[in-house]
């Protein structure tokens, strides 16, 4: 302490004062009153970029806030089906839970643009397109509530989406309620933006369009449960013969699995990076680069159950270049299961990179 009074060290006494002064501004961050202006995809000379359109937010803000509320007081549109809000928590309470657990990746409006998102690949889901990759429903249907609950409970393995099985069930329902809210809001917002970009419209007409769109989207969510895909045939036993048959199909010209996933399943096929027809790199519906799954890892993002793999093949993966292959199997629906068995066996096999007709170079023993 004596040093503080000595010549040359008198400046030290300012250290505690300055440190305290630097704390000014530390405190809870206020919730914004409205969502950030949305960006729209714009293509200039084949270059895709996202831009904010001047004044767009102001034009549609009134209508959007009336129907969906703001970040602090969200609400479902009038006439929302009861199945879209199941938990015991109100939507503002769900929003608060969302901000605690989800917002740092998925962003305030569910745009997948939270502060953690730039560090992640694959990117967190942007709910605003209403597209969800891993569902039990058909290719043009929304996910069921159970699909979203599964994603929350188990996470998405191979990505940064963690498993939230330590939350209790009502909290997970609350988060699903809010995700559906953000999703419906996002889709309605896009339609409204398209309309406003095309022509001038007064607020009441815009509101009508928005309400109609919201109703139709919510109806699709409500009916998703009717669109669950159940396997057409029961799963046959896991045998060496089944895996062999699956391998044949995998490399066949009809299915073209190997074109993307590669002959060794590593996701390095000839069409893996660039679509041979268009010459464009593979993109998903969110305009991000996407790669075919590396099947040798044994990590299945949409679930590892046999029925999950069945659904990926039968109905494709929404929003990605993984196609709906149902029609290729219409003559032999059981063949899908053989492909599933082969996919399950790939991580345990040592596949020959050269195309082989019928015999894999190493095969598992008979399952029991």
């Amino acid at each position, binding site marked *: *302490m004596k040093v503080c009074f000595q010549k040359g060290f008198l400046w030290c006494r300012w250290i505690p004062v300055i440190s305290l002064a630097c704390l000014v501004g530390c405190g809870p961050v206020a919730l914004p009153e409205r969502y950030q202006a949305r960006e729209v995809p714009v293509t200039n000379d084949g270059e895709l970029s996202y831009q904010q359109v001047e004044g767009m937010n102001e034009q549609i803000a009134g209508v959007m806030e009336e129907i969906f509320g703001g970040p602090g007081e969200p609400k479902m549109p009038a006439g929302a089906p009861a199945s879209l809000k199941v938990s015991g928590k109100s939507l503002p309470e769900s929003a608060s839970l969302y901000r605690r657990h989800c917002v740092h990746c998925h962003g305030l409006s569910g745009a997948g643009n939270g502060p*953690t998102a730039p*560090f992640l690949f694959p990117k967190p889901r942007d709910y605003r397109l209403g597209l969800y990759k891993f569902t039990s429903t058909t290719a043009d249907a929304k996910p069921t509530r159970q699909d979203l609950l599964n994603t929350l409970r*188990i*996470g998405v*393995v191979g990505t*940064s989406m*963690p*498993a939230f*099985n*330590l939350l209790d069930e009502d909290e997970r329902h609350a988060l699903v309620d809010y995700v559906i809210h953000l999703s419906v809001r996002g889709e309605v917002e896009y339609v409204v933006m398209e309309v406003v970009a095309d022509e001038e419209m007064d607020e009441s007409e815009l509101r009508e369009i928005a309400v109609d769109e919201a109703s139709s989207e919510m109806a699709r969510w409500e009916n998703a449960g009717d669109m669950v895909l*159940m*396997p057409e045939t029961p*799963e046959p036993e*896991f045998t060496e013969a089944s895996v062999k048959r699956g391998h044949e199909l995998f490399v066949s010209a009809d299915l073209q699995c190997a074109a993307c996933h590669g002959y060794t399943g590593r996701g390095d096929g000839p069409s893996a990076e660039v679509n041979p027809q268009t010459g464009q790199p593979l993109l998903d519906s969110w305009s991000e680069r996407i790669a075919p799954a590396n099947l040798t890892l*044994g990590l299945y993002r949409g679930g*590892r*159950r*046999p*029925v999950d793999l*069945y659904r990926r093949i039968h109905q494709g993966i929404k929003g990605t270049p993984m196609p709906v292959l149902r029609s290729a199997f219409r003559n032999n629906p059981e063949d899908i299961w053989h492909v599933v*068995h082969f996919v*399950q*066996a790939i991580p*345990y096999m040592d596949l020959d990179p050269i195309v082989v007709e019928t015999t894999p170079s190493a095969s*598992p*023993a*008979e*399952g*029991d």
Partner: protein
Amino acid sequence: MQKLWSILFLGLLVFGVWFFYYGMTTPGMWLPEQASTYANDVDYLFNVILWITGIAFVLTEGALVWFLWRYHATEGRKATYIHHHFWAEIIWTVVPAVILIYIAVAQYGTWNNIKRNPMLTGPEQKQAMAQIVARQFEWRFRYAGLDGQPGVAGVDDDNNGTADDWDEWGYPGSDDVESVNELHVPIGEEMVFHLRSFDVLHSFFVPDFRVKQDAVPGLVIPLWFQVLENQLESGQAYKDYDLICAELCGWGHFKMQGKVRVHTQDGFREWLREAEQKYRDPG
């Protein structure tokens, strides 16, 4: 004024002792309950070291306080330069050396039992009950299933002449079960687990069991524990314990929490059966 430093260090001494006293006597602030068979051994070592260092702290801090008070700077008094005090140097070398050797000997048995137990590796190794794969930022578990055998018996996947078990986990067609962030175990049984990492360093830490082991990418590290029978009361089906990551692994390290659910022996088999069914259920 010069005696102020002496008072301050005395305050530090008093506060330090009080702080530990407060922690040890307040419920929830000290060690968690001992839920495994070697938890008591670990706690014993903890307390031995705490008391040794605590007494050393009080003695040395007390000496410091006394010297600061008695020999504080005064106007007109020069400091004495002392060098080379043979017996002081002998004492302060030998005493700590003896203490350290004592600690090394005292912990040897416990360390051997936990980290070098014959059931972990070598000719007497036990079949692992589950494989634990630490991943940013979750815990993935693969269980050997009701047949007690990971994968499918007799498969030699890496062509080394023996049917290893650790790389056959989750073999398709087997009854192996996977779970995320929830480790299910039966009570009262010595269980071996194989710990791996998918990407970076993590550490498998269950405070109530006193088990902590770094997960090193590229290595398969066996660990074991046994939950004490007294953890489940009669009629209670299961009890949950916290599992946390104890090695900084990235931005989500704080979130990398799981739970260990201890079932009764029958309850555990029932859970395995249900998990296997859910896997096969096309619903």
